[in-house]
């Protein structure tokens, strides 16, 4: 019991925050929002996976990845490939010159399904691929960088470059990837209509459950010795190395874990939004994910979820009225947060609640004193 309490929930304050978040996502939002808005929240929450991964990687590990979109995208494309194959049954694609392959392949004069698409006919393979491939890719990048002690701004730039390369690759190879339009027209999953309202509700709750599980797993990692070591590596890498640790292995692990978490978000994105495109892979989405984490509080697994929701609602509202101003506004917000509130929303909340509890305690003491004064006086008036 203490294991669950301390290790998985992070003690009293962690547990309170977790329960409030869970109630907010699972009870309050579904009761107050219509299915369109709820689906929108579901979409935003898939970005929260990437934001949570950045808490581990950037907040604790001090490794700034400007390429979480890579892994979000890989997860999303994996799921999209499976759904696309199902949507491309020979009956559905009878008008194509080669029926039974995705429409964009037919448009690009491809006449048979490539082998790596063939594999995604199986849902089991797809799920395994979503969980393994992005992490494996992260392992390759991580091993190449961290074993050579590439870090800091160089690492950030390299992740950024890989995100660009992946985008260019997807756009360029449109016969295999659907190009700039992405993979669209996804309808069913094992025969189940994923565009129906009921499916959207179910995906929303599955998404919330997965997000809460990811937060719990992350909490478990951060409260272990590994978590202390991450902070130690961030602040004094050499001291950790000269205390007998192979620092690169720790960085590689957390980078892979962050990739896995982002990929789950990407797969849930495809399921809820019904398509996947390169615009969720490249520079802009990757940097947006960093902004979600910064605004929510990069040291807070819970805070970044609120940060993600807040920024995305802001984006939806503002970009409808002032589309050309939104990017400036978001950039300005990012700079302001980093300069004035380095711990983001979570930091503001922590300071404020601290202040409030102090005040409440003072209030309680004051009332307590007065009450005892009154009772003392009464006792003095009625000596019996």
């Amino acid at each position, binding site marked *: 019991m203490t294991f669950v309490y301390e290790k998985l929930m992070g003690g009293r304050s962690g547990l309170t925050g977790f329960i409030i978040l869970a109630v907010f996502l699972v009870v309050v939002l579904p009761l107050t929002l219509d299915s369109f808005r709820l689906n929108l929240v579901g979409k935003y929450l898939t970005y929260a996976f990437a934001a949570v991964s950045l808490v581990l990687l950037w907040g604790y590990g001090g490794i700034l990845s400007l390429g979480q979109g890579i892994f979000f995208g890989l997860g999303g494309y994996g799921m999209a490939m499976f759904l696309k194959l199902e949507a491309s049954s020979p009956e559905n694609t009878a008008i194509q010159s080669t029926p039974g392959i995705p429409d964009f392949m037919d448009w690009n004069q491809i006449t048979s399904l490539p082998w790596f698409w063939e594999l995604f006919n199986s849902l089991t393979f797809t799920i395994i691929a979503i969980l393994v491939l992005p992490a494996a890719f992260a392992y390759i990048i991580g091993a190449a960088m961290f074993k050579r002690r590439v870090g800091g701004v160089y690492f950030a730039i390299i992740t950024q470059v890989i995100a660009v390369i992946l985008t260019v690759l997807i756009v360029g190879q449109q016969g295999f990837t659907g190009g700039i339009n992405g993979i669209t027209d996804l309808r069913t999953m094992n025969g189940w209509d994923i565009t129906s309202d009921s499916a959207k509700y179910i995906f929303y709750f599955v998404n919330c459950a997965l997000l809460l599980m990811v937060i719990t797993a992350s909490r478990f990692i951060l409260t272990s010795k590994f978590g202390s070591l991450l902070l130690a590596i961030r602040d004094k890498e050499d001291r950790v190395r000269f205390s*007998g640790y192979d620092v690169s292995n720790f960085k590689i692990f957390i980078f892979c874990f962050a990739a896995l978490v982002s990929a789950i978000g990407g797969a849930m994105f495809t399921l809820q939004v019904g398509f996947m495109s390169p615009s969720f892979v490249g520079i802009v989405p990757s940097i947006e994910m960093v902004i979600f984490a910064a605004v929510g509080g990069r040291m807070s697994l819970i805070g970044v979820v609120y940060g993600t929701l807040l920024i995305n609602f802001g984006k939806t509202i503002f970009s409808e009225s002032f589309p050309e101003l939104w990017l400036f506004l978001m950039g300005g917000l990012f700079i302001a947060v980093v300069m004035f509130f380095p711990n983001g929303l979570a930091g503001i909340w922590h300071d404020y609640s601290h202040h409030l509890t102090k005040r409440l305690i003072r209030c309680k003491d004051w009332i307590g004193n007065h009450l005892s004064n009154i009772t003392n006086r009464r006792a003095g008036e009625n000596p019996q």
Partner: protein
Amino acid sequence: MNASANTDFTLSIEGLTVSFDGFKAVDDLNFYLDKNELHVVIGPNGAGKTTVLDLICGKTKSTSGSIKFLNQELTKLAEHEIVRAGVGRKFQTPSIYENLTVFENLEVSYPSGRGVFGSIMFKRTEEVSNKIHEISREIMLEDALETESGLLSHGQKQWLEIGMLLIQDPQLLMLDEPVAGMSVKEREQTADLLKRISKGRSVLVIEHDMDFVKRIAQRVTVLHQGKILAAGDMEKIQNDPNVIEVYLGH
């Protein structure tokens, strides 16, 4: 002496050279450290003292020569392997994890759960906790275990870093200017601490403060321009005309 022969020395350095763009910071150095010896290295700025420690702990790779620790060649090992072999090194400026408590600093340095999964599954057992308390008593920080270490005084930070090494029970402890920036009282306490912890292990200290050196040293080596200028006990060093010329006279 044959370079490949096994010896009784804790540390035996032979023909060690490192050059940075042609500048030889350490030049054909031979140096031996006995078991249970507390040895102090002194010398003017730029003599190569810190570089020697960097070479031993693997922070800098040597150009040529051999460093043997308990007859194991260190020049081929990675930093963490050298630490695991039993070499601990304290840096010149206190190098502790300021955001963690004193307890956590010591726990992070505890020599088990050193792999990725080992550290995730690491449990704060009674054994770990007892060891941390024992070390914190040794370094005079038992009352500060729950203090965030960034809030400690400069001297306490230095002790904490020594404690972080002690918890790994190294056979060779290397300290780079352990009393720099300390008050007189702290220097005395640190001298006593070093005498206590040098029992059962070899200690190599770099220091500038001659009073402190006199207080602790069994043997002293003077480095100058990457070479050994003189070696022996304190009295001999103080009366050596070469040493007075390049170092003590200033």
